[in-house]
């Protein structure tokens, strides 16, 4: 699947959606600092990989997807949940990058300049996350190609199939009323 830049998501976003994530991020930064002060860096460090914005992001994606489908005439919570699940699956893949980020910082921060370590570690996070995502896409494509007679039930298909069923039910209900 091709990676695209789409500004429509940003245009439909509300300012408070970013503010909410900002608050969660700030809250966790402060909490990690406090935890490190109270229990030491070994415990405080755990919170640097806390999934702080994950629940907020998943809930917002679900809500937005449901509103979008509702405007298009679809019903049900399935599209919203499926979209949120796909986003969280992406985060799980990004988690591998996060592990490499922390590994690079742990092994090199004493010897390298801080800025250099953080830049290299961030670049490594992105490259590893991208590699895992690419691999997952490739495996998914191959699995689908080798099972042509079995329904693939990809999330995209599931969303559109259930959406279509809901839509046709609405149309049929409308006809009955007429």
């Amino acid at each position, binding site marked *: 699947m091709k990676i695209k830049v789409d500004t429509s998501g940003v245009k439909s976003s509300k300012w408070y959606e970013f*503010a909410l994530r900002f608050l969660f991020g700030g809250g966790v930064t402060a909490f990690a600092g406090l935890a490190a002060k109270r229990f030491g860096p*070994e415990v405080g460090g755990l919170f640097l*990989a*806390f999934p702080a914005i994950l629940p907020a992001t998943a809930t917002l994606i679900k809500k937005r997807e449901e509103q979008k489908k509702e405007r298009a005439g679809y019903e049900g919570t399935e599209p919203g949940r499926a979209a949120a699940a796909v986003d969280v699956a992406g985060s799980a893949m990004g988690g591998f990058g996060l592990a490499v*980020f922390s590994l690079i910082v*742990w092994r090199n921060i004493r010897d390298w300049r801080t800025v250099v370590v953080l830049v290299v570690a961030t670049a490594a996070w992105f490259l590893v996350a991208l590699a895992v995502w690419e691999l997952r896409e490739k495996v998914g494509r191959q699995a689908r190609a080798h099972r042509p007679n079995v329904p693939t039930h990809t999330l995209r298909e599931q969303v559109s199939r259930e959406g279509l069923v809901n839509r046709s039910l609405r149309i049929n209900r409308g006809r009955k009323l007429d």
Partner: protein
Amino acid sequence: MVSAFALLGELLKPKSFAGLFGAAPSVSLATLALTVMKEGKSYASIEARSMLLGSIAFIVSAAVITRLMMHRKMQVLAATTFGIGLWFACAFGLWYGLLR
């Protein structure tokens, strides 16, 4: 930093790719930079070692949340709340087993 990564996630498609930015090191970048300035590099190094365990817990909890929503049809809020609890269990379990 958190909002910048969130904005990047909003801009990119497909959704699974945008989701990568949900695991961006946004909180850790700010915290580690501040820690180095205030407490020194050794302290930051210890934090980063623990962060590695937190990352493993992150992968486990995000994978379980995905499964709960996709296959068990669990509601988003319930699944993510369970995932947060799972993160705590995994992160502190690993810390207890490996670092304590």
